[in-house]
């Protein structure tokens, strides 16, 4: 089967293209379900969105329709030592979403009500009640939405945890190997890896899972499927270790802030303020006024942060479909090919989404419905680039 200079691996039962939290969880549950699994990843496992995100495990930022998924995923994260085998320091803490203006109060109430419809236990707290929960808050705040199902993980540990779990489950991992081409012949999918020193990587499998995050658009194009995927470039800021200044996960009504203090004393500030970057170049650099804006918002919420020292600022890429809802399910027109990705607040819901897809592929009926990618197929074959860099 091998020709000189080629290393062909397999045939496997399935090749997962993309080693983020969704690809890894899918691979893990497929392997535990008895499949021989290969996973190919362009970088190291969980070093893109899955490893550099804010680690927020919250319902306050989750799209309302995804709340049932996020609740189940939150439980998975809290029990990660049971199914993943090691800790990502998942920590339960109450979540508060805040309103500082009348407009924000209206938004807060409407959003809390919408999420409650989908099962989120969110209560509204008057100012003094919120200050009792989080004494460090700026007392200028008017009202808060309170949710017990909230918390955070240390996202940077995700790769280490999945690496160990996947190896233990017998998954063959190919890191530093971007997929360059995918052929479908004789009932096999052949994924081509990079060429290096005359040798090249080939992985054969009967099934295919595309889990490439922001790179899903070019990856799906290798299968002649055109689905536009927008790239968000989210800014994150972490402080040096400092004495306790907060004990809840904090956000604001419009979703443009996320903030928590880890056990080691560092405070992580996010919220989706945009930086410069795209999927070709990766994250490039921050936009000064967005950095200042994000920090001002954080300092406004917790005034004690004024004295904190910023240790590190970075950017992470997030994938979004045209309707900002996930694509998870069978790829139209191809046998045994699947896609998973573009889940809003994807780190929170990711492991549950992977588990659902694996259930489906193993022949079971998923506990909750998937998200048919067919709705997203672009009408025109050639779409303009939709990279966002502003």
């Amino acid at each position, binding site marked *: 089967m091998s020709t000189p200079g080629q290393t062909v691996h397999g045939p496997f039962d399935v090749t997962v293209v993309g080693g983020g939290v969704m690809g890894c969880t899918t691979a893990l549950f497929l392997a535990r379900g008895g499949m021989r699994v290969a996973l190919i990843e362009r970088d*190291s496992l969980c*070093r893109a969105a899955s*490893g550099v995100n804010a680690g927020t495990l919250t319902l306050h*930022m989750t*799209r*309302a329709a995804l709340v049932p998924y996020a609740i189940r995923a939150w439980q998975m994260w809290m029990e990660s030592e049971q199914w993943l085998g090691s800790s990502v320091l998942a920590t339960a803490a109450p979540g508060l979403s805040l309103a*500082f*203006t009348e407009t924000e109060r209206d*938004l807060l109430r409407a*959003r809390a009500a*919408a999420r409650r419809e989908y099962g989120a236990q969110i209560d509204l707290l008057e100012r003094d009640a919120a200050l009792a929960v989080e004494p460090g808050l700026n007392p*200028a705040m008017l009202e808060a939405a309170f949710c017990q199902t909230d918390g955070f993980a240390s996202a*940077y*540990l995700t*790769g*280490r945890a999945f*690496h*160990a779990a996947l*190896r233990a489950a017998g998954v063959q*991992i190919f*890191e*530093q190997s971007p997929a360059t081409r995918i052929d479908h012949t004789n009932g096999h999918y052949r994924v081509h890896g990079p060429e290096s020193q005359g040798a090249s990587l080939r992985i054969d499998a009967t099934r295919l899972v595309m889990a490439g995050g922001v790179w899903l658009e070019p990856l799906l194009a290798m299968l002649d499927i055109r689905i536009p995927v927008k790239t968000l470039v989210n800014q994150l800021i972490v*402080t*040096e270790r400092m004495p306790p200044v907060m004990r809840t996960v904090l956000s604001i*009504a*419009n*979703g*443009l802030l996320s903030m928590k203090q880890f056990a080691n004393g560092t405070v992580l500030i996010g919220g*989706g*303020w*945009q930086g*410069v970057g795209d999927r070709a170049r990766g994250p*490039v*650099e*921050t936009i*000064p*006024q967005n*950095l*200042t*804006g994000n*920090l*001002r*918002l*954080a*300092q*406004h919420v917790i005034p004690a*942060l*004024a*004295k*904190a*020292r*910023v*240790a*590190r*600022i*970075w950017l992470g890429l997030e994938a979004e479909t045209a309707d*900002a809802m996930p694509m998870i399910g069978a790829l139209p027109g191809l046998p045994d090919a699947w896609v998973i990705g573009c889940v*809003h607040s994807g780190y929170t819901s990711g492991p549950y989404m992977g588990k659902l897809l694996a259930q489906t592929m193993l022949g079971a009926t998923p506990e909750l419905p998937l998200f048919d990618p067919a709705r997203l197929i672009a009408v025109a074959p050639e779409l303009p680039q939709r990279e966002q860099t502003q």
Partner: protein
Amino acid sequence: MGEFDVVVLGGGPAGAHAALAAASAGLNVALFDENPSAGGQVYRAPIGGTRAASSADQQAGDVLRRELAASTVTTFFAHPVWAVTGDYRVDATGPNGPVHCTARALIVASGTTERVVPFEGWTTPGVIGLAAATILLKSQGVLPGRSTLVAGCGPLLAAVAAKTIEGGGKVEAIVDLASTADWARTLPAMLARPDLLRQGFNWWRTISHARTPRYARHTIIRVESADDRLRATLAPCDAAGRPLSGQRTTVLADCIAVGHGLTPATEITRLLRAKHRYSRAAGGWIAIADQDGRTSRPLLYVAGDGAGIAGAAAAATHGALAGLACALDLGATNPMRLTRSIGPARSAHRHATRFGHAMSGLMALRPGHVESITPATIVCRCEDVTRAEIDAACDAGAHDINQLKAWTRCGMGPCQGRTCGDITGELLMRRMGAASRETVGCFSARTPLRPVTVEALTGDFTYDEIPIPKAAPL
């Protein structure tokens, strides 16, 4: 705030000479440095400037500072730069709050970070870097301790010991990784700079008058507290820095000043994604550059030790060269004169590097030295990550230094891996059996380049002034 033709980052000999060269070619130049005045490490000024210049280095520094003051260069001293972006915007914090400016070209002259190859107890209070000791001695006129043990390698050993003795302190011993023969081999190159050679001889004369013991081909293997002092255990070592079995010597001191060479500070060029390569002889990762300091990125230049360790004398000539090259590339007036100047500047620089390269050879990372780090020894001092944890992560599959960082927090602290990056990369490479440091890479550079307080960035504001983007989808 301001628009300049060139912004020079770093006010040591390389940066100051780059700024002077570019300014005298008619360019509008700004110079940033976190220190209160120009000079860098070697030509560092005493704080307050009250004490008369006491050494050749300080006199040379005073000349440089006067030249800079008389030039058209706009200087921003006491301004740590915390961000540099691809459009050559420079952000810094200063005594009067944040400042920023933009430039058509950037010259990075960021100098070095001192390397310490970890040993048991190296994070004990009272153990400081050789370079830190020189700051105390030169800038504050303060002795690092009543008695000091000076250890490591390179010319800083003699400089710190001699200045400590001249300042009235006691040096318990000098522990030198190099042998006397290693030093003798540098003599031909040192003859290229009789002035520096004489300075070195004077240092050693001071040391021998004080009858300071010197342990050649020795290394510190352990430091522990002993009442209110420190006890260092010394072992003989081989040429690769590997401790040998046999006799152990203990020395008591108040302070241990130790340094194992210098690594180029490349955070800014890495942040700007210029191409880099690893060079053991140059001290570590360096930006790929031509002889005039042009990097792979248009109108981005490197000069001085930050471009590869070659010493202060070579930094000055390299800086002048980069300043000229930058002026030529920006189309400054009088290109004929500049083109005529560049030949002599290049040969002056070549001459100056001979001495510096001999010294950097003495300071290069020794593989056996790194191998001898014991498992329980802390490598990343910000996050208390030990060698054993690094080895375990490597064995578990972390084969890239940034993957290792995520798995262990090594390099994730406030220093952003400046202190441990060189050692961590070397440990990872050796554990993997990889042939080159390029295989494991180097830590990603991130802003802020220096920690900066939230309030320094936020300033005065009201809630309704925050430009909050449109709400996330529900």
